[in-house]
């Protein structure tokens, strides 16, 4: 099989991994070498689905002995199998990199034989790149659940970022849909990687030239919509992963039905893209806006508002805190105003030292006046009079697309419930399951 055919098969097999970021590492090529990395990451292209293409995202091999129900590469699927030889792949990476097609490599692999054997092949590819080509571009490698600790360690010394996919948001779903993977096999390497990063941080204080272990940290991905977990469940797990394993990112991947299975949504089901979008919005609120996962839900609700940004939804439920005087409100509260982002909140705190801010200045600072006007006063002045009625306000905070969606999907419902219908709270069993998934092992 020629390289073209392998590339077609192995990139097609890898594309369901959401992460393609090249951020978190800052490096310059050494003399005689090739490759650098920018902390902010660089996108090299955008695919037809609008996702960034930064890294050459391929599998080393899609011959997998596992049989996970949701995965295109599962053993029982009748798909063409292919494998890159380590040197063949390394040469392709360098040829692409020189032409500035890519920012680096995102390497994963099916479980060929054993997790250890698959990891060893990946290590050989990375070794050729790092040691023979002196390549210092970005490498993201997937740690395969069940691989030996020493191999994961070696992988971490070669890669900039490591990730282990948590795959599904609960142990039960994992057992049902990915019978070959266990919670322990996934969280094991995750803890191992975190340990490696921490230890490396201590070493670097003592020895400046200590080899760097996964300098861009670790991330994970979970599939949304293949199993029944609520948004609340997913976000509580996410926030546990951020605090307990100090992950850089948690990615959500709207499930694209690729396989026919009784336990899964039917193949015609469209991927739940809106839900994925809401989860990412909430994820940003957790990481940059000082929200906790509990705050995003009201009482017993289990899902995020389907037609409204979670930040707007939170603000609507806390109307008594608003409006804020933009010239006096502390930074932490400015961050909670819909239409004010991390950058504009910072700019506000800086600009108001020079002169009192007016609505005109706020627009130039870059806040979204359309949303913020309901929640701010500038120099005692409201943007406009007559705060809208609650229902009107709700519609006003939606984007045109959200409003269209809201109108079509709720057209038949006479009694519009303001905040969407309620879903049941977490059952005690679900709570227990959640706490044990996030617990250290």
């Amino acid at each position, binding site marked *: 099989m020629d390289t073209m055919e392998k590339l077609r098969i192995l*990139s097609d097999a890898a*594309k369901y991994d959401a992460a393609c970021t090249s951020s978190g590492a800052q490096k310059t090529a050494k003399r005689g070498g090739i490759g650098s990395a920018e902390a902010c990451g660089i996108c090299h292209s*955008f695919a*037809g689905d609008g996702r960034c293409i930064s890294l050459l995202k391929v599998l080393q091999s899609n011959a997998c002995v596992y049989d996970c129900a949701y995965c295109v590469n599962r053993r029982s699927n009748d798909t063409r199998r292919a494998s890159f030889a380590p040197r063949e792949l390394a040469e392709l990476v360098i040829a692409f990199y*020189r*032409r500035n*097609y890519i920012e680096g490599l995102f390497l994963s692999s099916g479980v060929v034989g054993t997790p250890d054997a698959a990891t060893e092949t990946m290590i050989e590819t990375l070794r050729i790149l790092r040691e023979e080509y002196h390549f210092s571009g970005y490498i993201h490698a997937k740690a395969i659940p069940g691989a030996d600790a020493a191999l994961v360690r070696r992988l971490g010394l070669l890669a900039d970022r490591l990730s282990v996919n948590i795959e599904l948001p609960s142990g039960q779903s994992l057992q049902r849909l990915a019978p070959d993977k266990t919670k322990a096999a996934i969280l094991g390497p995750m803890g191992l990687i975190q340990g490696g990063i921490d230890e490396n941080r201590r070493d670097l204080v003592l020895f400046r030239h200590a080899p760097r272990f996964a300098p861009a940290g670790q991330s994970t991905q979970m599939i949304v919509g293949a199993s029944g977990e609520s948004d609340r469940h997913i976000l509580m797990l996410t926030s546990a992963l951020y605090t307990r394993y100090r992950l850089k990112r948690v990615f959500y991947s709207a499930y694209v039905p690729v396989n026919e299975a009784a336990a899964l949504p039917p193949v015609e089901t469209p991927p739940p893209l809106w839900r994925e979008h809401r989860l990412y919005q909430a994820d940003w609120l957790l990481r940059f806006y000082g929200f906790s996962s509990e705050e995003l839900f009201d009482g017993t609700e289990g899902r995020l508002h389907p037609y409204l940004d979670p930040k707007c939804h939170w603000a609507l439920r806390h109307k008594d805190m608003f409006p804020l005087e933009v010239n006096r409100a502390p930074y932490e509260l400015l961050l909670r105003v819909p239409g004010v982002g991390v950058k504009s909140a910072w700019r506000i705190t800086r*600009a108001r030292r*020079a002169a009192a801010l007016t609505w005109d200045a706020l627009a130039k600072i870059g806040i979204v006046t359309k949303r913020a006007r309901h929640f701010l006063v500038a120099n005692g002045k409201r943007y406009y009079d007559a705060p809208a009625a609650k229902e009107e306000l709700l519609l006003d905070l939606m984007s045109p697309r959200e409003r269209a969606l809201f109108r079509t999907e709720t057209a038949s419902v006479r009694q519009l419930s303001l905040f969407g219908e309620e879903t049941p709270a977490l059952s005690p069993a679900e709570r227990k399951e959640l706490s044990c998934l996030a617990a250290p092992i």
Partner: protein
Amino acid sequence: MSRRPDINHMDSALTYRYDGSFEGFLCCVFESYAAHELPAAIVGPDAPELSLFGIKEIPTDEERAARVARSIPTRISRAADELIRHAFLTCLPEKELVMLRFLRQGYRYGARFLSFAGNEEVWRLTEAVKHLLHEAHLLKGFIRFSDQKGVLVTTIGPKNFVLPFLAPHFAKRFPEEHILIYDEKHHAALVYRPYESAVIPMDDFRAAPPDEEERKFRSLWRTFYNAVEICPRHNEKCRMTLLPKRYWKYMTEFTKDAPPEMERIETGA
């Protein structure tokens, strides 16, 4: 010490013409103070004669330029100095005039001027520079090199003059390569050979047709580009927002190579 009130009304009959260099612009600033006047337009050397009124030629004088250059970081701030230098590379319409107005107010208010969030000139220059830096950042990723006998060559068509920002990036990334990036909108090129780079004026550049190996990697890249899309998630609008169409014609994944025979006829080989 009493100050003369700053002039707020521009002289609608007055146009400055300078040589298009940054030093030339600084001399316009000098002239504006020396003659105590605010022109209605500042044009480069190639500007068509549109004005019915007199054009005042501003000669470039090194000493005057140096005086103004020194005054910006000391009398306003280092940040203002950087903003002005970057703003000069942007595609902001009438940028010279906006920059002159910015500087006149800057000298008046000093370092705090930059944090006047509502000020028209601060805002316009900040936005223009944001656009410039963003475009430079995008091109770090969107540039596609062709290997032409060991030299990496490419053509770009950016709105802003981004070459000075690309130089350090590619020097860091490919220290051992020979590189040529031709900007066909500004008729300039970035040339790099190990451990030195320069931005030089260049009227025209046409890359040679790709050889067999180059064709192979181009088609491998197109294969990857097409395979990596998740088709049920197709989202044309999202792609267009993130990767505007004006970049497409320079990018391997959106262009086709003519068959080798055609190339030979075209180039007369």
